């Protein structure tokens, strides 16, 4: 085999990736440009908020509760040899609000709402609904994509906050009600050490970033999927994988920016 073939393949893949990135960026710019409809016809956005947000509450709350329970147990086991079991509240609150809340919410959201968005858009494309809209001079980006995008951007921060809040309450149940730690210490240490702007605020900024990223990825992959059942199936898997990776990389970048300097 010609030894230059792998090198050529590398070049081809790189160019393909760059082209895809460029295409995706233009799609994103288009999406933002057509967002006006999402605000003007807010009813459409409300319907999407229901589909994306309300339907995700159960999994987010359940996951938040279990993560809070586990954090409390593990935190207690780790802290008690040092006599610091009273700091459990601080440990759980900071872990949830800074990192676990935003990231886990984004991953669950990508899995639950992201795949449903991709599948829906992909099936619309496969059923030629998007072409039919264009025929009627209705811009599918304004009518279909923009409301879903706005709904996603609004939902993820709210879901992230619900995740963290439920997690902290679950940790309270384990730490104070079950293990018997002092509730005064639990809440007062938490209030002293958790900063509204630095910790809660940065966590919410993260959820905004993750919401924008995963919703955009879900819509883009759905819009660009092959108009066949297999194509749609592949697209939904691709959404979860790409969303998860992007969220995790974004998390690292944002954490480095937000939390490195004291």
């Amino acid at each position, binding site marked *: 085999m010609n030894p230059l073939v792998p090198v050529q393949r590398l070049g081809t893949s790189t160019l393909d990736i760059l082209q895809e990135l460029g295409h995706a960026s233009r799609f994103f710019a288009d999406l933002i440009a057509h967002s006006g409809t999402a605000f003007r016809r807010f009813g459409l956005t409300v319907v999407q908020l229901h589909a994306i947000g309300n339907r995700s509450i159960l999994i987010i709350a359940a996951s938040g509760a279990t993560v809070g329970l586990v954090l409390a147990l593990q935190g207690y086991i780790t802290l008690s040899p040092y006599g610091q079991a009273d700091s459990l509240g601080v440990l759980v609150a900071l872990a949830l609000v800074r990192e676990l809340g935003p990231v886990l919410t984004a991953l669950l959201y990508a899995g639950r709402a992201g795949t449903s968005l991709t599948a829906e858009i992909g099936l619309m494309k496969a059923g030629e609904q998007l072409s039919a809209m264009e025929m009627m001079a209705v811009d599918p980006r304004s009518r279909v994509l923009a409301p879903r995008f706005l709904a996603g951007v609004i939902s993820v921060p709210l879901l992230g906050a619900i995740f963290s809040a439920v997690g*902290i309450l679950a940790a309270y149940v384990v730490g104070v009600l079950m293990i018997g730690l002092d509730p005064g210490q639990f809440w007062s240490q938490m209030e002293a050490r958790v900063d509204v702007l630095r910790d809660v605020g940065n966590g919410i900024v993260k959820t905004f970033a993750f919401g924008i990223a995963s919703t955009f990825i879900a819509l883009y992959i759905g819009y660009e999927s092959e108009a066949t059942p297999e194509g749609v199936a592949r697209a939904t898997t691709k959404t979860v994988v790409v969303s998860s990776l992007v969220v995790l990389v974004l998390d690292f970048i944002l954490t480095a920016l937000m939390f490195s300097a004291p």
Partner: protein
Amino acid sequence: MGRRQTETLVGTFVLLGMLAILFLALKAANLASFSFESHYPLLARFDNVGGLKVHAPVKSAGVTVGKVSSIAFDGSDYRAVVTMQIDDRFRFPADSDAKILTAGLLGDQYIGLDAGSDDRKLNAGETIAMAQSAIVLENLIGALVNSKAAEPAARPGAK
């Protein structure tokens, strides 16, 4: 599903989210103690600020009365200049002193203000005259080692 019902459910969802954010801000974080009162600045010059950080509390009689807003180095007398924002409700006598104390044994450092007895009160931007620097652990250990080393030489004379 009826349009009314959808909108109500979405409203509930948004409400839940807002409540969660509020809970995190108030119960889990320190928004409640965010003082919206106005503050006035006071300065203090220390030989060594130790581990004092910006946003460290300023306490008097154990109660937080302000925050450290900036720590700077004065190149002319090689001391640290600490600016504190003190709550407007509290005015301190001109002979108050400022000490850098540690919360607990190895905890975060904060500034403790001991009120003096002067009738004149400090105005905004004035410097606190008496400032005690932070206790640096290494210096303390060094002093202890030196005093232990000096002891055997003193003993024969004490007999």
